[in-house]
């Protein structure tokens, strides 16, 4: 029974990783850009929520809602004025610019908020649990997982049901032809990164509610997110959720055997998938 419990906790943890990864997956799917600062942007989101909570006295969930438009603007500007200039055939500029951004952001946060670890204020919700037969499920992990599913459903709706989504798909398939059809690709890219940062805000909320965070934890979140994206297959959002779940289950199983193996077993699961299915579990026809 303890194993069933461990696996269920792992699946729920996977929801958090899928939230980390969804923004990365979206941006990659549309403009083939891997943002190495993604993890640090999540941490930045967590600090923004914390700031709103402490300054305005808002509850964390409401603070996240207030933070969303702000984060959208940050993402839009970031893409429009910085990252768009790095896109092209050469893979070096986007990699090096986002890596530089990651280091700069990390240290800016360190300067602004010190290295002390922080946590969003918690209430009864964070510690409450639901008894399902012999297994008790935390409300917070359940909420995280539900949010991940909601985000992915929402993104799929956006992609396949709206005009913006059609522009996204067209740009993703062939940016040059899309721009001939009157789509301003620069703005489409900016909007995509804006939306990615709205998802980052959701991820940041759960990151801050579930555990302590400090300015240095960004890169590790980036790695989990990246692993989930690769396991799922590039550009597949449901694949990203599956990838997150695999990492989550591997980590909780590893931790159940030896607490020191938690992170390691997540990485090893990733490498195993890479060995067997180099293009991930649910790859798109082309990437």
């Amino acid at each position, binding site marked *: 029974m303890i194993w069933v419990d461990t696996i269920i906790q792992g699946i729920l943890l996977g929801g958090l990783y899928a939230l980390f990864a969804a923004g990365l997956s979206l941006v990659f799917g549309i403009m083939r850009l891997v943002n190495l600062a993604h993890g640090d942007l999540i941490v930045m989101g967590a600090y923004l929520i914390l700031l709103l909570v402490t300054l305005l006295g808002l509850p964390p969930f409401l603070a996240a809602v207030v933070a969303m438009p702000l984060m959208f603007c940050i993402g839009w500007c970031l893409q429009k004025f910085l990252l768009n200039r790095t896109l092209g055939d050469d893979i070096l500029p986007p990699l090096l610019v986002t*890596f530089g951004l990651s280091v700069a952001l990390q240290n800016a946060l360190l300067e602004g908020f010190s290295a002390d670890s922080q946590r969003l204020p918690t209430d009864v919700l964070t510690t409450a649990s639901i008894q399902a037969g012999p297994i008790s499920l935390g409300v917070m992990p359940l909420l995280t997982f539900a949010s991940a599913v909601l985000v992915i459903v929402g993104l799929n709706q956006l992609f396949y049901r709206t005009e913006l989504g059609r522009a996204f798909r067209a740009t993703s398939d062939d940016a040059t032809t899309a721009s001939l059809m009157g789509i301003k690709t620069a703005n489409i890219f900016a909007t995509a990164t804006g939306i990615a940062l709205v998802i980052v805000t959701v991820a940041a909320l759960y990151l801050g509610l579930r555990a302590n965070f400090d300015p240095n934890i960004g890169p590790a979140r980036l790695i989990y997110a990246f692993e989930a994206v690769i396991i799922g297959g590039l550009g597949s959002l449901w694949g990203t959720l599956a990838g997150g779940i695999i990492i989550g289950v591997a980590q909780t199983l590893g931790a159940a055997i030896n607490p020191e193996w938690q992170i390691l077993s997540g990485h090893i699961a990733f490498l195993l998938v890479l060995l067997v299915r180099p293009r991930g579990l649910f790859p798109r026809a082309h990437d």
Partner: protein
Amino acid sequence: MSYIVTTQTRASSVSAIAGILLILMLIALPFFAGRGTIQDMFFILTMLTLAQFWNLLAGYGGLVSIGQQAFVGAGAYALFALVILGGFDPVLAVALAGFAALAIAVPTAFFAFRLNGAYFAIGTWVIAEVVRLIASQWKSLGGGTGTSLPRDATRDMWFVEMIEETLGVRSAAARDILAYWIALVLALVTIGGIYWLLRTRRGLALAAVRDNIEAAKSVGVDAGRMKWMVFLTSAFGTGVAGALIYLQKARISPDAAFSVTDWTAYVIFIVVIGGIGTMEGPIIGVLVFFALQSLLADFGSWYLMTLGVLAISIMLVAPRGLWGLVSERTSLQLFPIQRRLRGGRLTTSEDQ
């Protein structure tokens, strides 16, 4: 009149003479410089070595790795294991440490070459994390907290007594001087070796793969083999440099030896600021990096933030780095690898 294909330019002949003078001065440095200068120079030379290998990998091989700390750490841990557990002399262990990095590099390449571009970058990072986590399980080398080199091992190191007597310095200073000389040899061998490689047919093949992989393949270049060669070479060199750095530090911990900031971020910034894909770039970059570090060392995180912002600006404004700006204006090449046709009577279509 016959044609000659040459890479030599007048500037390169002048710089070769200046280079030899500089090398002689660097060799003699411990005879007149203080211990602080020697330590600074050690830092500059080891960072230069790391930067040259990363530049070979990313600038020439097109393999942007963020996992070079795996090889620094592997080399460093191999040094400690050989000295503490195997009873080897540290100087010999530094040379052998490269093979430990090589042993890590083979499976790393096997996994990472399945990924392209940005995914290769993060893939190497994940593997470096795996190596770090495994190293922190190595209980006989201190596990997660790390360990120190035993005092008697470093005191009785080869050549140390000789340096003590010749230069009349204490044992600690003699160890620094020894480390400095090894670092100097390593940096010179690295620069010389990479320069030699780039001038050979393999170097030409490498540049072809970097510029257009499909075209290179179509003229018979084995692109896969070039990637392996570049990756394993830089892993070996990075491992030796890592072992040397930790010979001088004499204290290791997994978090420090596998630090992505110290061994990859700094190195990337050095190469990008100086000019990626050139031999001169890392040299300029490491000098700028050292100057910035001396200026901003007291400001802690501001320093890294400045470096990050500087790297972003350079990538956007002058993607060929500081050296690129110089060579664009003056077409100066200190390490020319471009082949030029000289001699004979050149006729162009306008003449006819």
